[in-house]
């Protein structure tokens, strides 16, 4: 049956049809739906792991046990999981193992624009790159066969535009793959120096075999063109843009296997055209390979390594005129993403702002606290970096830093990689204050359960990590819990913990307002007679409050009645409905 699938859902269906039994992942846009969709198939055991390294090692364990397994992550998640990946390349697999990684050119929802193909090259693991949802499905299936045939994990690389675009997919039926026996094999699976040194040559030999395979594999194809003055090598979403612009005018070498890259296929293609182009988003990886073959090529000297491409950006480089369009003179104000009305993070950020705190931030919805008007966050680096970072910061800033600086980290991010940072604080004794913004869900990626919520990926009851007990067991004696809707309480506890001469954790606990079980209260409204137009509420950044005709006004369709504005207003102008 033909259906529209987003790339991620097509990958999940491919995993299912390939007989995959285990999917373990940590959510990360744009990869999240692969695992969510996989969880919808009863034959697949799917789970949210605390981080990508744990997820990949879980998938490895399942492969070792003889079943086809998978883990999915965003590009930066592969950094976290790079450690197992590089050595899994040496051990190889038992059951097939597929690692899905989704890059985010244009940074729709990420902190950098790294190109995952570097990881494939560095770890010497083959990588496939689909260009639409049908290929997401086909390649996911094929990746397992490749994994087992070449005894290697296989990377499946997506980008935002492939992961989140729907196109038509024709799916098949699930192939039940029997569990392979687990056979103890120390020389293959125990990567201590004496064994690993014998595995490395096998990895090199495998890469050469895969390179031969790449010459004729079904993932790479030449599409003929009428005009041989130009020839274009491309892959993934860029293939679609190239075809959109040129149709069948110029010959195209479409690469579906982006590591290892073929040699003769490229040489022959180059020989058939006058000028060779490589069109690839992010880094010039195919181009560099082409250059090592001694072939003249046009690539990153014309095409930018920055941002997401489109038919328009590529078309411009080829010197085609811009399409006719309308324009108006009025400047349209930007509409950046922001914390929702009633977001529990806002109350805590307001208190931190008022106390002029330096805020070492982390990755999640609460990163939006850096946006105007609060601008409360000082740094954002990567998952867990707040808790580790504040420790180093305070070590050099001394008492001045300790009394003014906090780390903020969400519940899910704390589980992901905040715990080890807190261990460092307790062990190496910096007097740091860590605030866990516990909104009881993984928010930014669209509400995934995590080890602190007490539910698993299917919403069934699961193990629940007790944050207070965990922090105490690490050796943090001062663990406080506050309600971020209660500004006075937050302010009092914050001042006490910043003043305290030992490390502390403040758990700012209130579920995300977008959770279905969180019931909105009646919206507030502004009494125009009491409002003195001081605009103090404007500094608080609630999207439900705006100035209308000189007075504050609450949008009743957005307000959830959290009541924080009532505490911010010095004149009591915000009122509940009579």
């Amino acid at each position, binding site marked *: 049956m*033909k*259906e*529209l699938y*987003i790339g991620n859902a097509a990958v999940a269906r491919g995993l299912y049809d390939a007989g995959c039994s285990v999917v373990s992942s940590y959510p990360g*846009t*744009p990869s*999240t*739906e692969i695992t969510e969709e996989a969880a919808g198939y009863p034959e697949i055991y799917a789970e949210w792991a605390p981080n990508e390294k744990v997820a990949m090692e879980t998938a490895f364990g399942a492969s070792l046990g003889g079943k086809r397994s998978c883990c999915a992550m965003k590009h930066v998640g592969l950094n976290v999981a790079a450690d197992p990946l590089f050595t899994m390349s040496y051990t190889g697999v038992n059951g097939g193992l597929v690692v899905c990684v989704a890059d985010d050119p244009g940074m*729709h*929802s990420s902190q950098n624009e790294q190109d995952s193909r570097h990881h494939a090259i560095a770890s010497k693991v083959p990588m496939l790159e689909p260009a*639409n949802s049908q290929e997401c499905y086909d390649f996911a299936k094929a990746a397992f066969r490749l994994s087992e045939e070449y005894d290697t994990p296989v990377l499946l690389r997506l980008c935002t*535009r492939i992961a*989140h*675009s*729907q*196109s*038509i997919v024709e799916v098949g039926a699930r192939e039940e793959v029997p569990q392979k026996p687990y056979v103890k094999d120390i020389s293959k699976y125990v990567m201590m120096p004496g064994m690993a040194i014998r595995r490395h040559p096998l990895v090199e030999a495998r890469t050469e075999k895969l390179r031969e395979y790449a010459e004729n594999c079904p993932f790479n194809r030449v599409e003929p063109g009428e005009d041989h003055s130009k020839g274009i090598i491309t892959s993934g*979403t860029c293939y*679609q*843009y190239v*075809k*959109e612009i040129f149709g069948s005018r110029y010959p195209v070498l479409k690469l579906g296997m982006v590591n290892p890259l073929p040699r003769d296929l490229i040489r022959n293609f180059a020989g058939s055209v006058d000028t060779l182009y490589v069109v690839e988003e992010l880094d010039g990886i195919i181009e560099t390979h082409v250059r090592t073959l001694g072939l003249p090529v046009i690539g990153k000297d014309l095409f930018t390594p920055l941002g997401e491409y*489109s*038919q*328009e950006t590529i078309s411009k480089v080829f010197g085609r005129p*811009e*399409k*006719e*369009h*309308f*324009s*108006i*003179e*009025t*400047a*349209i*104000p*930007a*509409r*950046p*993403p*922001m*914390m*929702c009305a009633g977001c529990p993070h806002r109350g805590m950020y307001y208190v931190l702002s008022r106390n002029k705190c330096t805020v070492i931030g982390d990755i999640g919805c609460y990163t*939006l606290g850096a*946006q*105007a*008007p609060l601008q409360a966050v000082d740094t954002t680096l990567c998952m867990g970096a707040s808790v580790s970072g504040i420790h180093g910061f305070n070590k050099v800033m001394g008492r001045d830093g300790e009394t003014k600086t906090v780390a903020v980290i969400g519940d899910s991010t704390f589980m992901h990689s905040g715990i080890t940072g807190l261990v460092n604080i307790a062990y190496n004794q910096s007097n740091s204050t860590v605030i866990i913004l516990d909104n009881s869900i993984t928010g*930014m*990626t*669209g509400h995934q359960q995590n080890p602190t919520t007490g539910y698993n990926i299917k919403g069934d009851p699961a193990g629940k990590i007790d944050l207070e007990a965990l922090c105490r067991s690490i050796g943090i004696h001062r663990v406080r819990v506050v309600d971020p809707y209660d500004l006075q309480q937050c302010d009092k506890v914050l001042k006490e913990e910043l003043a305290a001469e030992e490390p502390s954790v403040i758990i700012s606990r209130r579920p995300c307002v977008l959770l279905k079980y969180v019931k909105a209260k009646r919206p507030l409204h502004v009494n125009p007679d009491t409002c003195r137009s001081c*605009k103090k509420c*404007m*500094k608080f*950044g609630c*999207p439900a*409050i*705006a*100035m209308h005709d000189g007075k504050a006004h609450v949008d009743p*369709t957005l307000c959830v009645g959290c009541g924080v504005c009532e505490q911010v207003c010095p004149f009591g102008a915000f009122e509940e409905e009579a």
Partner: protein
Amino acid sequence: METKSIMIVGVGGQGSLLASKLLGRLLVDEGYDVKVSEVHGMSQRGGSVVTYVRFGEQVYSPIVTTGEADLIVSFEKIEAARHLPCLKKDGVIVVNTQQIDPMPVITGAAEYPAGVLEEMVAAGAKVDAIDALSLAEEAGSSKAANIVLMARVAKYFDIPYEKWIAAIEKTVAPKFAELNKKAFALGYNA
């Protein structure tokens, strides 16, 4: 046929994903090759959001760029203006007259440009404005504004009314089917 391009633009949380799902469903049922491209994640948090829908015999790119959209449907006034450069010279832009202040307006760093629709018309764009929010409320819920807008969009397609209704039935949860069908009727006849 040449590939047709539609953009659905608005503010994160306004329900544009359901609109694109409905359109995608309908166009697949009509036998077209279809691509729909959405934005998930951070941009959805009250930010400006865009969904692209393209259909034809064979669709390559899933996105729509400058001067390519046959039709833009905007859930909010200034979002229409923001994406106007994507409209083809002979394209139509369907606009919900709702105003949602972006954060720079809320904080006073910028003013909401109230007259943009008139300016778009003056620039020569074919603007079809509709108060979808009021019609949705009339149907029973402000949340159905997306369906009201899709009903207006339906007027620019050669697809019979019943097929739209069938696509709605396949797309929305059964308990909301009646509400959405009512909203569609109001939008279609407005």
